[in-house]
């Protein structure tokens, strides 16, 4: 089972590949604001992230996901539940 830190590192690496022009990305980077993505591009990014982690992120949890760290915590939790 991956730790939260391992999940976060893998997520950061994935985002850097998928959003090459994003600049500096860390745990506190906001998905919509700081990455320069609109809501539709965020949804596309999430699909790629879901494939990478082999997990489905429910739409219901997205209002609570603002930063990369929030997303990593949610993925970590979903992986633990699986």
């Amino acid at each position, binding site marked *: 089972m991956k730790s939260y830190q391992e999940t976060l590192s893998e997520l950061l690496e994935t985002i850097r590949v998928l959003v090459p022009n994003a600049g500096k990305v860390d745990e506190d980077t906001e998905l919509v604001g700081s990455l320069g993505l609109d809501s*539709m591009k965020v*949804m596309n990014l999430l699909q790629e992230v879901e494939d990478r982690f082999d997990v*489905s992120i*429910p*739409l*219901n949890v997205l209002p609570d996901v603002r930063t990369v760290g929030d997303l990593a915590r949610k993925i970590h939790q979903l992986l633990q539940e*699986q």
Partner: protein
Amino acid sequence: MTLLDKFEPLQQARERLRGLGIDPFNVVVEKILSPTEAIVDGRRVILAGTNNYLGLTFHPECIAAAVRAVEEEGCGTTGSRMANGNYADHLALEREFAQFYDKPYSVVFSAGYLANLALLSTLPGADDVILIDADCHASIYDGCKMSAAEVIRFRHNDVDDLDKRLRRLKDRARRTLVVVEGIYSMFGDTAPLKAIAEVKDRYGAYLMVDEAHSLGVLGERGRGLAEAEGVEDRVDFIVGTFSKSLGAIGGYCVSPHRVLDTLRYAARPYIFTASASPAQIASTRVALRLLRDGGELRRRLWANAERFYNGLKALGCRLGPQLSPVIPVILGESREESLAVWKELLEGGVYVNLVMPPATPDHRCLLRCSMSAAHTPEQIDTLLQVFAKVFSAHGMAAD
């Protein structure tokens, strides 16, 4: 920051549209002349942006039935069916939908939007899952928002992605409702329903198909994509609307499951709204009969769609993935140019729908065109001439 300040960007966007002289999202139809013609902005236009697939809105038998219902039963029902009672015609229409689909259970709703809200907000509960195609209509997303269930999207028309997501759910797959549409409203493409039915059967999930744009359009008897694909016995809930091929307003659901009938006591969008007016029910009853016997209307609809689709293709337009009566002409990312193209088409006597992100499936604007069985070949040729002129002026047409 006040309660109202968040609307400022939207108000500014509306002001910019007003500067254009006409707002494509608030068009006034000054007079409707027929299923395919109207007066808009002072000029006669051909309507190629409706959902009037069979052209039944002006059918004399539908009009006569609606007039008779108004005279005999009044303009409205003034209340919900649970509180104020069922009119005989509402029950008759439900029986006719059940017979039409050869299903034991049928419920009529006051709008297609409400049918989706009712099913999705009530059927899947707190421990259940709704698995929706990413391109599903807003009414499906809104129904999901009202539901206590977990909501997961799968990639549009991607059966492998659906399979993957059902696999991840393990035992919960058996408590999952998969939701797809017959024909998708923006790109006009159909769901790969046979493959979807196979996957959901393998995992023991349930399947709901919204046939809003495919009722009357697909299938030998016009029952929609499930009929055309031969999988009607594997669909748990078929939802649809009266507002497209049936030319009125209202919604319905048919199912082999008795629980559909029980939803009358649980679904808030069924309980807490007034039932459809007598005129709407009466005209829909006639339209459903015309649709059922409408093989010739369907043939004309598809011939018209083919004529327009091929004509646009010859002009070099970027079109949707497959031929259908919903024909998207895909424009670029520039909203200004898309607005100009739409306005010039209107000035040339052509009304189509302008659709911009986020209402489009991707980042591009599109002109959503739709065909009707009531269009004449001459009208379609006129549409193509105007498209050719406007697209040439914008460097969008092939030489």
